[in-house]
């Protein structure tokens, strides 16, 4: 148990520290890298809870896709981050004060709750060892939670439509691949047999 406790506190501390550095790092590329670090630590926490599937999902989706996308965007766009940060010091005192208040309140509540025996009514879930993580999720995702699954699908659909509506532009003069036309090509339309007289060649 001691080992587990050590692992938990380590991972938790790294998550929070990395999160802090995401916000404070001067170089935006560093920020993204710290973000990846935070994701990894969070994945570790999932593993400790016995939720290996979610941990892998976090790594694959967030680290593999989202964070890398961030990295691309940050490196490709020439954003003047120093200008964006100009107000940072100016707003630090009051921002810090608000943050401090929030932290104090969260800690106070946590302490108060912990002293009353943590989360009442919430029994600790013990992961079942009979079936795998993925199977457990799969069993409920398309039955009990089909509604949420479909609704989430709609959210993604909206995101897709939004991306298209806001960014797709039809420029004139762009050649596009017309698959139907390609497929419909037959030898009759695709080629022409010409008798060439020797020494003359084709006129065109």
């Amino acid at each position, binding site marked *: 148990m001691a080992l587990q406790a050590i692992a938990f506190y380590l991972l938790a501390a790294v998550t929070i520290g990395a999160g802090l550095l995401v916000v404070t790092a001067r170089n935006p590329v560093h920020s993204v890298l710290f973000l990846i670090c935070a994701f990894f630590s969070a994945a570790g926490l999932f593993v400790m809870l016995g939720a290996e599937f979610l941990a892998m999902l976090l790594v694959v989706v967030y680290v593999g896709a989202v964070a890398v996308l961030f990295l691309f965007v940050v490196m490709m766009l020439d954003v003047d981050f120093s200008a964006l940060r100009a107000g940072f010091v100016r*707003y630090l005192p009051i*921002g810090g004060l*608000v943050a401090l*208040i*929030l932290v104090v*309140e969260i800690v*106070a509540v946590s302490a108060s709750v912990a002293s009353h025996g943590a989360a009442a009514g919430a029994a600790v879930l013990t992961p079942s060892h009979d079936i795998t993580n993925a199977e457990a999720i799969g069993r409920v995702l398309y039955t009990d939670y089909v509604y949420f699954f479909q609704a989430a699908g709609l959210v993604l659909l909206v995101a897709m439509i939004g991306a298209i509506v806001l960014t797709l532009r039809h420029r004139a003069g762009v050649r596009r691949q017309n698959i139907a036309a390609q497929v419909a090509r037959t030898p009759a339309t695709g080629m022409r047999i010409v008798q060439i007289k020797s020494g003359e060649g084709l006129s065109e």
Partner: protein
Amino acid sequence: MTPQLIVTVLVLAPLLGAIVAGLFGRRIGNVASQAVTTGLLFLACALAWTTFASVIWGGWGHFTVELAPFINVGAFHSDWAIRIDSLSAVMLIVVTSVSALVHLYSWGYMADDDSRPRFFAYLSLFTFAMLALVTAADFMQLFFGWEGVGLASYLLIGFWYKKPTASAAAIKAFVVNRVGDFGFALGIMTTFWMFGSVRFADIFPAVAAHAGQTWTFAGHYWAAMDLACSLLFVGAMGKSAQFFLHTWLPDAMEGPTPVSALIHAATMVTAGVYMVCLLSPMFEYAPVARQIVTGVGAVTALFAATVGLAQNDIKRVIAYSTCSQLGYMFIAAGVGAYQGAMFHLFTHAFFKALLFLGAGSVIMGMHHEQDMRNMGALWKKLPITYVVMLIGTIAITGVGLPGLELGFAGFYSKDAIIDAAFAAGSHNNSTAYFAFVISVIAAGLTSFYSWRLIFMTFHGHAKWGAAAATHGVHGDAEPSHDAHAHDDHAHDDHGHGHDHTPHESPWVMLLPLLALAVGAVFAGKVFVEQFVGEGRAEFWRGAIFNGASNHVLDNLHVLPAWVVWAPLTVTAIGFVLAWYVYIAKEGMGAAIAARRGPLWTFLYNKWFFDELYDATFVRGAKALGDLFWKGGDQRLIDGLGPNGVAAVSALIGRRTGKMQTGYVYHYAFVMLLGVAGLLSFALYAWSK
């Protein structure tokens, strides 16, 4: 038709007329407006007489029609209702008869006016309010009618609103009445406090039980019933133009003459008397309040009669006469002879309306001249007017033979009051005895000024004609540079275009005069037994309450002979004096006026009441108003209130507008501030 339906139609018909003429008058035209209002009024009048006959001699009995709830809050209940009993039946015929005749009369009198629909709408509105007042079954509707007639009176006095004096008179009438109404409202509150109800039907049976109730204020015990009745009487004083609150009535003569006849002679001003009679169950248990009523009535009777001696405006003389006669009515009510008060109210309505309408006829005939000094010898030119005015004067002076019990209307009612005052006074009631003495003196004065009016107007030398255009220059009038004299020249704005010879009025005006003249002659003889005589118990049937020890009316027949003959004697003396001053030695009156003796000045200036009020209340109120207006309102209230608040609001608006910088991180920060604030509040509030 059921009795309920009849009385409902009766009360609402004038309102319908007022609505039609008031809202659609311009569309349907003058004649239609006049026809609708007058027609409905005559309908109401016919129904009123039907009701009166059925209630008094038929089998209707006393009943109340509840139309709709009015106010229903907690223990306070008030309904729109029509209460029919002998008392209200009498008022119904008085109000509707005079009103109908005045409507008819106005066809002629107002023929040249541009806004006749408005005039007729106001008249009908007034009639409706007056009917609501007299048929009220509780204090709230009484108050509604009270204020309704006040409003109509205000509108009608100021009918020629472009005339500054008329507007001022209207405002004066309204403001003075407010003083009375304040007392009235306090009286209603006191009554409600005592009885827990404003319904007469609840209050009257409970009066005896509350008779000894007291109210502690400023360390003294006050008899609650006396207090309530005194406060209610303050309201009556305002409406009936009694001493101290009388100043508005003479000025109200700025209104068109039919209005003066209807409102300021026959009906509205008698509302106070009616109210005291209606509340006789309460007043019977309020001895102090009754003393006050008697005293104020007596002082008014004398005061108004003396002032009437020295006035020159024909309408003002009659106005002071009205004031004086109302004093008589209050004397009667105060000594316990409520029936006598109602009787005088009834007969007075006829002959006073007659006098006013007759005066209106004279004014018309004289091309809107109201100053009696510029009249004279009109009897040949206006014979019918002269005859009816003569009848009215005989009636008001109360001429009749006590031995034969034969006389004009005023004879029965006024003598009944004088006798009642003596009867009460002989039972160790000094106030009543004082009232008796006063009323006899006032009867003489009444005779003098009434005949003075007749003589100055219809007899003597004609002061109109060639010199009429420059009135005031004529030798027998006092110099008219006097400010008050000038006031008295109050002209209606719209003169006639034709020549300046006096002429008799059209028949549409004379007919009402003749009808009223019939009333002025016979109303007394016909009704004396029912109102105050042997048949009174049968007539009133409990509508008026007389306490167990109140035998005033029973004692009327056992009076010494000198008391019975005294009124006639002083009346004759007054007549002879008037004849001597204004006929035998014509010019003597003008000479007295020209000398400007102290007594004459005192009377001419109406005991200097207007000046007194102006110096104290008007100036004082103005100074106080200035203090609160400039200091309190403009600096304090406006500065801190509307203007200050507006400035602060705009400032807050600008500040919050500035918060809207447009930067997302500012917005996000405000959101986080909100989260932190709410969390802190929640932790603070929930940890308690």
